[in-house]
């Protein structure tokens, strides 16, 4: 393209040359003017609230009156009153929520990656109705999380739910299961609904990577008679690995802050409460802004740490310079 355009720009080259530095300077000035509104808005609605949340975590603020509070240092995190340890870091419910979140993230992202890859491989094959299929799998992704949680709540209803009905009819279970109330099944139920909702997202990201692969490798493998499964593990998987890692990171970070799904499916039950659910419960239901902010701050630190590690690992190309 550049060779075709070059002759046309040559005559203009000379006059521009003299004014280039001033043009560049005025463009850089314009750049700052253009990004200023975005930066100001983000500083106001993201930077400032984050800073205030961290500050509140060192105070005894209460939701009723956010102007009257005292600085209490690390007491929201850990404190010793008369030999008794108190604070967030001694609260078993907090650690339970950390464990729930980690377990939820690990299992659901793993399942979603495997299923997403399978769905992507299918959508990458050519068959009649492929376009329709691609639209159909987007439906779970498009449904608002609250709505899908409610839909599944209804389907999983212990007495009138269709899932129990199906399983009973098929003879897979002998008695109806209380999916969301039973501590043994609650977290698995949450994971299943998340898998239903988010696998399409994974599949689409992986599909985009698959479609960028060169076709001739597969021609060669076909000519050589290599088994398709072997082709997948030897050729496809290594080639889509970078995209797969990005997708897993995005999903993982998203899963770590899960709130809607768990809150609507199982309310504030401690069997399934995620870190976000725990923090909001302290903050809003118990009005403990100090303690809730401490939990929020820890969540932020955990996720920030993970982001920094990923960035340092250099898997995500962040400078964004053109290829």
């Amino acid at each position: 393209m550049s060779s075709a355009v070059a002759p046309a720009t040559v005559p203009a080259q000379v006059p521009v040359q003299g004014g280039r530095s001033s043009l560049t300077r005025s463009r850089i000035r314009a750049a700052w003017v253009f990004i200023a509104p975005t930066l100001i808005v983000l500083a106001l609605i993201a930077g400032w609230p984050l800073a205030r949340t961290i500050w509140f975590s060192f105070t005894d603020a209460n939701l009723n009156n956010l102007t009257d509070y005292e600085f209490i240092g690390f007491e929201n995190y850990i404190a010793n009153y008369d030999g008794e340890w108190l604070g967030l870091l001694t609260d078993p419910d907090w650690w339970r929520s950390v464990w729930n979140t980690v377990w939820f993230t690990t299992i659901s992202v793993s399942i979603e990656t495997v299923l997403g890859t399978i769905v992507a491989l299918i959508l990458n094959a050519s068959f009649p109705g492929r376009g329709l299929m691609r639209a159909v799998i987007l439906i779970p992704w498009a449904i608002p999380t609250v709505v899908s949680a409610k839909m599944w709540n209804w389907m999983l209803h212990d007495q009138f739910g269709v899932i129990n009905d199906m399983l009973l009819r098929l003879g897979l279970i002998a008695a109806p299961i209380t999916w969301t109330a039973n501590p043994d099944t609650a977290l698995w139920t949450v994971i299943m609904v998340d898998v239903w909702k988010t696998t399409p997202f994974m599949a689409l990201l992986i599909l985009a990577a698959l479609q960028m692969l060169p076709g001739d490798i597969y021609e060669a493998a076909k000519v050589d008679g290599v088994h398709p499964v072997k082709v997948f593990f030897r050729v496809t998987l290594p080639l889509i690995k970078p995209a797969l890692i990005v997708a897993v990171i995005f999903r993982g970070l998203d899963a770590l802050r899960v709130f809607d799904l768990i809150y609507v499916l199982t309310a504030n039950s401690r069997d399934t409460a995620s870190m976000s659910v725990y923090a909001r419960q302290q903050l809003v239901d118990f009005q403990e802004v100090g303690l809730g902010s401490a939990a929020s701050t820890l969540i932020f630190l955990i996720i920030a740490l993970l982001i920094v590690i990923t960035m340092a690992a250099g898997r995500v190309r962040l400078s964004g310079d053109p290829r």
Partner: protein
Amino acid sequence: MKILTRIGFWLLVAAIGLFSIFPFYYAVMSSFRSGADLFKVAYWPERLDFSNYVAVFERQPFGTNIFNSVVVAGSVVALSLALGITAAYAFGRIRFKGRSLLLMTILAVSMFPQVAVLSGMFELIRSFGLYNTLPGLILANLMLTLPFTVWVLTTFMRELPKEIEEAAFVDGATPWIVVRRVFLPLMMPAAVTTGLLAFIVSWNEFLFALTFTLTNEQRTVPPAIALMSGSTAYELPWGTIMAASVIVTLPIIALVLIFQRKIVAGLTAGAVKG
């Protein structure tokens, strides 16, 4: 062997399709059943009973909730795009010091856990006197949409050929004119994609809407559905909830089906190329 593989393939396709569609199908079915009917499991529609759809608008301010959601999501999209396109021009077309760092910061904001800003945002919204109002929600939701809007639009902006603006600059156009006259028309497809994604994010947003509103009249759709209750706390009005769910999901499904390609392009531009 070949036939077996084909049958297996189609079974898999059918299973994926069924698994994707069934919950919504079942919600639609349930929404047309009421009274004792609702509590008998059925797999096929028997008759159409619209009483749930009437109830959702009569017993709840659901019309208001929908209106609120449209206002919030619409404003969020408009603001995100207006701010996003100007910023994306600077990030995508001009080299300046600190560009990578700033872009990285903006990307980091899009990975913020919402709950991390919850108490600070609560204080901010209250101090502006915006608690339990729609502008409060618009402000809060911008935090979710603006970073990825900038990010995705920058990706698109960068892919436009370099020669486009050079001619305009040689003719003496200012950067502002270049953005408005040259890039705005070219960015329309990308803006539609990003706007759709921002709309869906805002339409589905729950945590802020739940925390920063108090009365049912100010709620957007997600908290309204989540907090719908019946005559007693233990008897949830499942038929009404399903009717409400179907009503708010249909427009989103329609959008997704119509703009399928654009949405996929936007999602992958944000993630894979990022």
